[in-house]
Structure formats: C-alpha cells, structure tokens
C-alpha cells in the first residue's frame, strides 16, 4: 500500500498538484495515523495534506477517485457450476507438475499465466496486472500514442509469449480448453488496455497539457480558432498569475548605509534629538501605472482582447490601468472591463467602436482632447496596433507629446517586423517617438512584453 501511495503522489503531480518531498512526508505521516481502512477518511487526509487551494482540492479529489478505481479484469465467459470443481482438479495436478517440468500430459505444462487465467481468479489477475504495470513502468507514460507499446510491454511482462506457446499446443491437444483460454486472453487484453488508459489519464495529463500549452503559446493570436479561445483565456490567466507572483513582492528596498537625517531627528525628538533610533533612507518603488490604447479594428481585435484581459488581471502588480479602445474613434473602456465578464465586455466594446476601419490620427486626436491628463511621469503608455492608418494623417506629433508626458511609450505590433513600413503602415514614423517597439503576435511574446514593462518599475 505504501507503494500505492507513492504512485498516487506521482499521479497527483500529473494532475497539476504540486507535491514536494516534504509534503509527501507529511502526507505519509498523516496516512500512517489514519490507516487505510476507511476510504473517505483517507481521501480527506490526502486532500488536507497535499492540496493547498480549492482548485487543487478539486483536481486531487478527481485524481483520487480515478486512482483508486482499479479497472476490474472482465471475465465474461459464463462459468457453469459443475465446471468449477472439474477445473480445480485439472489445475491442482498441473500446478504441481509445472515445477517438475517433466514430460507429463500437455495440459500440465501450461505456463503460470495460462493457469491463472483458467483458474478465473480475479484478484490474482488484477494483482498480476498491477505488478506487471509496475515492471513496465507505466507511470512513465506520457502520450496517448504510447498506449499500444505499454499494453504490449505489460502483457510481455505477464508472460504472453509462454501463453501463446501454450495456446498453440492446446489447440492441437485440447481444443475446448484452448477456446476457453483464448476467450480469457481477450478479456485480459481488455483489462490491460483499461489499465493503460487509466495510467494515461493519471500520469500523462501534465505532460499533455504542457505540450498543448506550448503549441498554444506560440500560435498567432490573431488567427486563433474559435474553439481555442477558451483555452487561450485560461492560458492568459496562467500568465497573469505568474506575473503577479513574480512582481507583487515588496516594493521598498532599504538602502543601508544612507542615513535619513530628517526622519532620524524627527523620530528622536523625545530624547532631545539624541539619535537613539536611526532611520535609513529607503528607495520607494512605484507600482506601474499603465495607459493602454488598443486598436480593435478587424485585424488586431483578437490580440487586443487577450492583451486587455491580461492587463486587467494584474491588479496586485499594477496600480492603475486605464484602457482605451479605438478604430475610427477612441473611447475609454476601463469600466466596461472591470464590470463585466471578459466575453461580455469584449462584445460591448466591439459593438461600440469595433470593426471600423482604423484611423490612428483621429483616435489620437480624441485621446489628446479628453484624456491627456491621465498621463503622469510614472505612466507607461502601451499602444497595441498594426499602425495601418488607411493612408490617413497619422498625427505622429500627438504621439510625440504623449511620449514627452509619460515615463515610457511602448508600441506592440502584432505584425512581423518585415511588414512594418510597407503599404499603409506608419510604423517607422511612429517608432521614432517610442521607447520600445516590439512584435507581439503570440501569447509568449505578449507575456514577455508585459513582463518587461512591469520590470522597469522594480
């Protein structure tokens, strides 16, 4: 059973629950206290010691249920009551003779697997499958394409080769018994296949998810398929969590060795200015203030959607976000994004300004007219767009003023570098006023871009 619990820890890691060695020790200690007799108590115990959040509890609960529901080896062959004793008598001499390996009747030379299958002992079969699965290191299974190879490995470990020989012999000598054995073998194959599927569900989930996420991270956001949008949203949430964890650490760093004279005097006023308590200078780091201008015209809308989702899930890291969306004119969308779910918010934004042909010039005019006061020397302005202004006046002078008023101006362009400046792209003209211009077409690039922006405040 101890072995099983260790395998369960591996399965738990597969389910996305982080089980550190220390936690597994704790869990083992707890399990030693409660014992294995009561499954619900065991479940509660493992949930209490291993899972560290509500999501992990759910995942681990499912994992537990799956793990401890061993697929029963199916034995569909109807077994007559009168046949049982006869079979037992068959078996007894054969197993005794198996050790001798003498030249008895062919029946007595059956291998251990054949004997086990014929004896119809469910528990023994299940145990044999489990130990063979261990020998074939089923817990290393990673991809669904490996199912076949693991099945055959398990069957080999159980002694399939010997069974085949037995079958060949029996077909000649005892066709009825051979028929029974063949049926039992089919049932066994099925049981092994179930075991492997279960193993795949338990151990391979993490790997499969990593692979899928990897593909998703590098897929161009603008051309993402509808069915992947939900997955992408989940991925963006993950990214947001990672950024939060990285950047929500304390933002005050003491500068040891630099005495803060004013604060020291004030603090020691009670002692007549004799400096009992010293105060040291601190470097105060601001939280990022972000103003985001997002193009929501047809070509860029999808990217803007994910970008806004990411920026607005960074509450702990970012003090203040104001978002604006534009295509032919510009509106503020911060309140819509705060109040509604991502899908509804995006639908509303699209109905207000979306799908127009983009006009960067007049959108920048809108911004300068109404929202210039939102910019402070601590603000980072992020513009997300392809800078394709349909040959209208780009008004790069406004962008210059924005750049002068703010800490940094970052332009994220979903188009590849090669396309900048061709056709109606005004990117080179805008780029002169930007602190950074970078391509931002995939989730990974998006994460790097936002991470860099936040890191400049650290």
């Amino acid at each position, binding site marked *: 059973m101890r072995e099983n619990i260790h395998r369960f820890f591996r399965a738990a890691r597969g389910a996305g629950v982080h089980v550190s060695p220390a936690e597994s020790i704790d869990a083992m*200690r707890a399990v030693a206290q409660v*014992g294995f007799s009561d499954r619900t*108590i065991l479940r*509660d115990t493992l*949930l*209490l*010691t291993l899972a*560290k959040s509500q999501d992990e509890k759910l995942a681990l609960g499912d994992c537990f249920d799956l793990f401890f529901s061993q697929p029963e080896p199916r034995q569909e062959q109807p077994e007559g009551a009168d046949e049982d004793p006869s079979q037992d008598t068959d078996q007894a001499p054969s197993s005794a003779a198996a050790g001798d390996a003498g030249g008895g009747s062919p029946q007595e030379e059956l291998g251990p697997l054949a004997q086990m299958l014929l004896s119809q002992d469910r528990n023994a079969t299940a145990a044999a499958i489990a130990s063979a699965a261990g020998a074939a290191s089923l817990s290393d299974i990673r991809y669904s394409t490996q199912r076949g190879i693991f099945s055959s490995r398990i069957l080999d470990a159980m002694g399939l080769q010997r069974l085949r020989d037995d079958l060949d012999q029996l077909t000649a000598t005892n066709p009825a018994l051979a028929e029974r054995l063949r049926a039992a073998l089919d049932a066994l194959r099925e049981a092994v296949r179930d075991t492997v599927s279960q193993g795949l569900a338990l151990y391979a989930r993490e790997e499969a998810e990593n692979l899928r996420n990897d593909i998703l991270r590098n897929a161009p956001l603008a051309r993402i398929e509808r069915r992947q949008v939900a997955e992408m949203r989940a991925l963006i949430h993950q990214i947001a969590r990672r950024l939060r964890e990285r950047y929500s650490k304390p933002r005050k760093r003491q500068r040891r060795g630099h005495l803060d004279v004013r604060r020291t005097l004030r603090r020691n006023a009670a002692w007549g200015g004799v400096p009992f308590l010293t105060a040291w200078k601190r470097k105060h780091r601001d939280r990022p203030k972000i103003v985001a201008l997002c193009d929501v015209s047809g070509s860029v809308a999808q990217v803007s959607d994910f970008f806004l989702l990411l920026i607005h899930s960074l509450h702990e890291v970012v003090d203040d976000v104001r978002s604006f969306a534009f295509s032919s004119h510009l509106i503020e969308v911060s309140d819509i994004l705060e109040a509604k779910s991502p899908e509804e918010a995006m639908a509303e934004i699209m109905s207000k300004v979306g799908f127009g042909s983009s006009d960067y010039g007049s959108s920048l005019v809108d911004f300068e007219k109404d929202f210039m006061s939102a910019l402070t020397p601590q603000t980072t302005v992020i513009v997300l767009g392809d800078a394709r202004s349909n040959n209208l006046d780009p008004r790069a002078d406004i962008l210059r003023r924005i750049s002068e008023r703010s800490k940094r101006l970052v332009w994220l362009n979903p188009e590849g570098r090669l396309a900048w400046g061709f056709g109606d792209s005004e990117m080179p003209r805008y780029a002169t006023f930007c602190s950074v211009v970078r391509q931002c077409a995939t989730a990974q690039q998006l994460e790097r871009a936002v991470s860099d922006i936040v890191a400049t405040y650290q």
Partner: protein
Amino acid sequence: MAEQKPSTAIEAVESGLAAQGYIASRQIATAVYLSQQIEKPILVEGPAGVGKTELAKAIAAWRGMKMIRLQCYEGLDEAKALYEWKYAKQLLYTQILKDKLGEVLGGAQTLHAALDQLHDFGDVFFSKEFVEPRPLLQALEQPGGCVLLIDEIDKSDAEFESLLLEILSDFQVTIPELGTVSAITPPTVILTSNSERDLGDALKRRCLHLHIGFPEQRLEERIVESRVPGISQTLRRQMVGFIHEIRSLDLKKLPSVSETIDWARVLVLLQASELDTEIVKDTLNVLLKYEADIEAAQPQITTFIAKAARSNVFG
C-alpha cells in the same frame, strides 16, 4: 493500531465540538484530529461568516484550553505580534539602580576592569524580566498548551508570513538577545484566511489546508438547531432551503452561516411560524448586506419560498 481507531477518534472530535455548539462536517473533524496527531497548524480558508474563527473557539472550549488570538492587519510587525522590550522599564531601572551601579563599579581600578564588570550586569537589562510577550510568545509560554488563533492572515503583509514560519514548523521563536524560546507544550495553531491575497507557498506547505465552504442543507439545519433552539422544525427547513436558493443567485455577498443564524434569531423574535413573502421582505436586510443584492433578490422571493416549501414536503 486497531482498525477502527481513527474513525472513532474522528467521531469523538465531531461530538466533542458538537457539545460546544459547533457542528463540524466530517472533513473539519478529520482536520482537527490530524492536526493533533501530527502537530501541524490548520490553515482554514473560506468565505466570511462560515465559522472559521468559531472553530478555534470551539476547539479551545472543548479541550479546556486558553485561546490566544492574534488579529492580523496591514502593518502588523514582530513588536506587536511576538515580543517587545519594555524600554521604559529598562530606563527606569537604570535610573533607580544608578547608585547601586556606581557602588559595584566603584571597586574597579581601571576603566577596563569596570567595563568587564559592566558586561556581567549588562545582560540583566536584556533578560526575560524586560520582555513584553505578545500573542505569539504568550502562546509558546503556556504550560498547558493553548489554541493559537491567527486570524485573517491574508490581511497582514508578506513579511509577516515569513516571521510565522519558524513558529509554525518548529513551535519556537528566536529572540536575538535571549536565544531560542521553544514551546512548553506545542499549541494548536489555527490560521484563517479570506483569500484576499494568495498566501506564500512556504506558509501553505507547513499547514493542513482546510476549506470550509457553505454547508450542505442538512448540516446547516443542524447548525441552526444547535444555535437557535427555539425555532420550529418546519420553519428551520423552510428558511435553510430559502437561503440555499438565495445562494444560487449572483450576488455581491452571499449570505453565510452567521447570517443564517441571525435570521433564525430574528424570525424567532418575530414569532413567525412559517415563511411568507411579507416577513421575508421585511427581514431581508438581515441576510443581504448590499442594497443592490436586496434589489436583485426581491423579485425572486415568492418563487424561492415556494421552492423551499416544496423541498420541505418531499425532503
């Protein structure tokens, strides 16, 4: 170990807490039992008002131990949580003992000798006498053990979490001037959190993680029964059913167990025998704490009452 032992022990925890008026689910009882057995703190998470703090109180009352409570807030530091030197007392004593010190040091011939003698006395002023123990140190110093409740840990700063790590894993604290103070009897530690921010992994790793959600209908009925004995069975069922319907709405703040109990008390005071639209409308502000929530719930009241009554008939 006997086969039945853990499950009976867990039942004993359940009934022990029930005797203190705290109806625990099986999970809660298992957590309490385990924390006792493997000496680990319990981190309790869940929405406000589901009885996280009550759990600590009930454990303390059940075991007959003292409960020491540390309420966390932003800016809480070790001077307020762990210990502090009694500066004023130290100053006062040096003043009073001035003459005495002079006498003692008078015998010294050289400055060096005086300094050596002073070193021997220096520790006098940094001894236990001058330490003001705050909740965490108090908890370690209780001879009979105690229940230490660290309430709303998510409100404190991230630095404070790190301060707790030593106490939570080894039940000891290190005071630079005095050395390490270990617990006489390891206290039972309960931490509560409303998940306002994510706690650090280091802290979570040291605890059993218990999530208390809204209770099931049966359990909640039993809680109401134990807390508000005067309420009739039909009314109890109806009101708990009604609250479960309310929780299915998308509200700013869902009514939790404490609101259920308050509402039950109000209904008893008003001598209601069963729920009707009139009385629910009048007392809805006990359950819902936001004007917007009350407005959202208003139109549903009649259907909810009907539903609650129906489940009453079949349940």
